[in-house]
């Protein structure tokens, strides 16, 4: 047998393997929904609390028809994307300012540790009072959750840049800004991207908690109001929407990651 045929065989084997995995993944999904439907249908699980796939699907159709779902979805998505971008950007900027002065970094160190250890959602009521019961509070909530951890992770990436790279720049008499642009930033791209991925999750936490508190619009608000009137169909519908959106957002960040890593040749 020639190598060409062997290679074809190898590829076919790989294709079959990945198809098999996909098949099992879909099967598992169907089984979960089937289990959910059957147990609630036969009242093994209380349908009042656990809803059921069919009830959620029905609600989805009604809500799409009377256009009362998408404004909330859109609102939450916007808040999350803005919070996510600003949180990461702000974290990067703070990390840059820490990097540019060793003294500032040393002075700020214990404050960062305290801020990082503190559960940011505890600030919720304060944020609500300061920024008012509106979209701004929700975004600030999202930023506050992701910004400190971004700062810490990105700053430590800046510090871990191989010191011989810095020596090369020093020997060319490069300024701090030049060193940052040519060496420190590109060397830290993989870390910055990995914080992006973490921040997708964190921003969703911030936005949903923010909407719980502000309670006027968005998927977080739908969950709270569904809970208050004991309409768990609505709670589950919102949950499923959140899961789908968060996954899409994560996949988008993964695409950006692939593009950037290729661009900077990692």
């Amino acid at each position: 047998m020639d190598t060409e045929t062997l290679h074809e065989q190898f590829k076919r084997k790989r294709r079959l393997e990945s198809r098999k995995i996909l098949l099992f993944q879909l099967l598992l999904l169907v089984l979960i929904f089937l289990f959910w439907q059957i147990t609630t249908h036969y009242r093994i699980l209380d349908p009042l609390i656990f809803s059921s796939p069919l009830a959620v699907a029905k609600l989805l159709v009604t809500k799409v028809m009377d256009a009362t779902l998408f404004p909330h979805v859109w609102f939450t998505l916007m808040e999350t994307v803005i919070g996510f971008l600003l949180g990461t950007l702000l974290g990067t900027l703070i990390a840059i300012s820490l990097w540019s002065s060793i003294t500032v970094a040393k002075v700020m160190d214990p404050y960062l540790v305290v801020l990082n250890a503190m559960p940011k959602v505890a600030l919720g009521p304060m944020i609500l009072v300061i920024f008012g019961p509106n979209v701004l509070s929700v975004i600030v909530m999202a930023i506050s959750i992701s910004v400190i951890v971004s700062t810490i992770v990105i700053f430590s990436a800046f510090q871990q840049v191989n010191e011989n790279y810095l020596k090369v720049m020093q020997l060319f008499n490069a300024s701090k800004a030049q060193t940052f642009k040519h060496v420190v930033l590109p060397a830290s791209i993989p870390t910055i991207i990995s914080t992006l991925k973490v921040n997708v999750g964190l921003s969703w936490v911030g936005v949903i908690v923010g909407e719980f508190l502000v309670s006027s619009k968005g998927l977080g608000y739908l969950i709270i109001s569904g809970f208050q009137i004991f309409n768990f169909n609505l709670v589950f519908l919102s949950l499923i929407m959140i899961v789908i959106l968060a996954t899409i957002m994560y996949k988008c960040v993964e695409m950006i990651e692939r593009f950037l890593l290729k661009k900077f040749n990692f």
Partner: protein
Amino acid sequence: MAFIDVCNIQHHFFNDHSYTTALKDISFSINEGEFISFIGPSGCGKSTLLSIIAGLIEPTSGVITHEAPSIDIGYMLQQDFLFPWKTIEENISLGLTILNKDEGQIVEDLLKQFRLSHTAKLYPQQLSGGMRQRIALARTLAVNPTLLLLDEPFSALDFHSKLDLENFVSETLKQFSKTAILVTHDIGEAIAMSDKVYLFSNRPGTILKSFTIPDEIRNLVPFDARNAPEYQPIFQTIWKELEANGYGNVT
């Protein structure tokens, strides 16, 4: 006055518990176009001395004076430290970009001369170790330094690339008539490449002895120098000197 005069350099490293004397009573001078080597055991302060000459570290005491009002220093490290996110071309032009100098033909000419023009658009990890070290030399030469500091630039290479690159660096430096200081712990390399060899002692690092390499060896490229009849005797002399000072295992 010589091209560079190094006078009574002394350097200490401090930490919370103690201090170490890295260098003591270092004095020597280099003439323009000369190639000198420092050999000695690892950790004897040779690299520290290079950093001091390069102006990266301020010595505890002592002065370095040079003839020219200012000297541009090129530094070649043990590994190439080319930036993986820049192409070969961008890596070589980096120094010029930072100094805001017009790169013009410099990069292209260097690549042509090094017979590596085909690598201009490639990235460092696509090249072999020897080629990368050549590119690192091109990056150093691009800014046209008057003094070159070579900190064990061949130690991370396999034997074949090492011999190959020794010839290449030696010829290139002669062609550009550069003054150079090489740090190494390979006695053969020091003899084959330099005009003068300084032998260092360990902790604190001082110059124990200096050896002037005879013209017969100096006029040959490093590879041929290793086979010259005058090579073995001087190798033996330096070897014995090192053993006498308790560093039998320096190579």
